[in-house]
């Protein structure tokens, strides 16, 4: 493994007495597509929130290219180069598809303005499969199209790290296939991605490596095929009887 782009070092997040993330450490290499999985309530989204700056960790370090970014506010992290999508899709409802993506281009790591931001937004909308629908108000769009918008908006900032929080959840089988291909394309273009996901088919086909969390701790980290066969992981998901 080359020098890690992102290092999570003994990161802990406690909400009062509840420890949602308990001294978790892992590394993500540049260009890697890492799956972050685990049962509901295992702390995956909290982990993502810590990396994106929505929450600040109780203790521990998060290093992006060697720079400690733990506890920085979300808008600063967006500028440094961390972009994300949300578990429950969040678009800017009163703005057009194009404007939604421009928002990412103008304020994110890219910091474009005017014609450049517009041109990039058009390219990205085409890449996520929304060509010809640039002016449609996003409130009128279907769920998967809104997810596409979110993805394009996150990409518009040209982030070092892209965080996808259950981006594939709620898609029907054919949409899922399209969604998986889209993530694969983005990954193949060299983008570093961490995806929290429950859709195991997607994890198997996309992620070479997985980190598994359960009750706030990391219980496995390695090649997806090995990790998914690990008795501890099976137990975490399905209970003792199946291990």
């Amino acid at each position: 493994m080359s020098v890690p782009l992102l290092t999570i070092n003994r990161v802990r997040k406690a909400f009062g007495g509840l420890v949602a993330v308990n001294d978790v450490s892992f590394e993500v290499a540049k260009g890697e597509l890492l799956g972050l999985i685990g049962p509901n309530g295992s702390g995956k989204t909290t982990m993502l929130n810590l990396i994106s700056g929505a929450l600040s960790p109780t203790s521990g370090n998060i290093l992006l290219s060697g720079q400690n970014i733990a506890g920085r506010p979300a808008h600063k992290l967006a500028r440094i180069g961390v972009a994300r999508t949300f578990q429950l899709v969040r678009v800017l409802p009163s703005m057009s598809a194009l404007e939604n993506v421009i928002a990412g281009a103008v304020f994110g790591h890219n910091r474009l303005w005017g014609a450049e931001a517009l041109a990039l937004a058009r390219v990205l909308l085409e890449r996520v499969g929304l060509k010809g629908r640039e002016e449609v108000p996003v409130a009128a769009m279907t769920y998967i199209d809104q997810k596409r918008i979110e993805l394009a908006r996150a990409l518009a900032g040209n982030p070092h790290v892209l965080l996808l929080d259950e981006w594939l959840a709620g898609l029907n089988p054919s949409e899922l296939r399209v969604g998986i291909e889209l993530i694969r394309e983005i990954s193949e273009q060299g983008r570093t991605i961490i995806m929290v996901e429950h859709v195991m088919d997607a994890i198997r086909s996309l992620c070479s490596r997985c980190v598994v969390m359960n009750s706030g701790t990391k219980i496995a980290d390695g090649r997806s095929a090995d990790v998914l066969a690990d008795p501890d992981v099976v137990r975490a998901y399905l209970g003792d009887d199946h291990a």
Partner: protein
Amino acid sequence: MMNIPRKELLALGAGLAGVAVLAFLPLVTEGFWLSLSVNIMLYAAICTAWALFSGPTHLVSLASAAFFGVGTYSVAIFIDVLPFPALILIAVVAGALLATLVGLATLRLSGVYFVIFTLGLAELLGQIVTWVQTNFGGTIGLYVFTDFTETHLYWMLLALTVVVFVTGWLINRSRLGLALRIIGNDEAVARHVGVDTARTRVILFAVSGAFIAVAGAIMAPRYGYITPDAAFNPMTSFLVVIMALLGGTRRLWGPLVGVVPFTVVMDFISGHFPNQTAVIMGLAFLAIVYVLPDGVTGQLETLFRRRRSIDKSLLAASAEEGR
């Protein structure tokens, strides 16, 4: 920079023509109509300034009276020692400073908590001024004597309104304007795409507060005798909100559509039914919120859009049949 769209150039032309015509108004009329025009121009400036912040952020501020009062007192305190332009400058600084402090204090407040905070602010400042004056000043009021006539006030308010509009237009075309629209849509998304939401909110509130303070400063000579009750009158805040909501805050010129008819009607009502004014105003507030939640301009826009989409679907249907 981006080039200016044709539609905005047309609006700019119309605006300039309108301002030119309005500037000549005091030459052809005086007395009642001029004084009514001063009122209209006053609320045009304040409501548009209010909507600069409250429109995109959806945070209803009732602090207008506080900024207005601060502006009025900037003039009342220094009128004998400084020339009037300097007093305007003091009002700008005082209004912006107060708004910055309030903005920083209310960063984590939203919805009704923000409303209550801003309402309390005007009351608090009024009480503080009263307390200071009774304990250290000897009298409650301050005199403001100037040579300004209604015509001068009118011109100053017209100029202020133009400056507010130009500022609003520039903001809309800037990163700041885009940031505000994103915040108004979803503050969490705004933060995560890289918008410094706190900074944006405070800057806009300061700009808005400074303009309202200037309006207060310009109006001080009209009152002549300044008391805290008049300068920090909460009615100012409520009127501003009602008029701006009536017009609609989605467009820069939206509040204007509410200000003109409302000021005229209110003038008529307060002249003929002085005892029922508050009741009628309350009813008007209810009616506006229920019937026109997006204001007149918002309602028109929605109607227009629906009309267009019906036309489009008819077109699509006939194309379908033609196949």
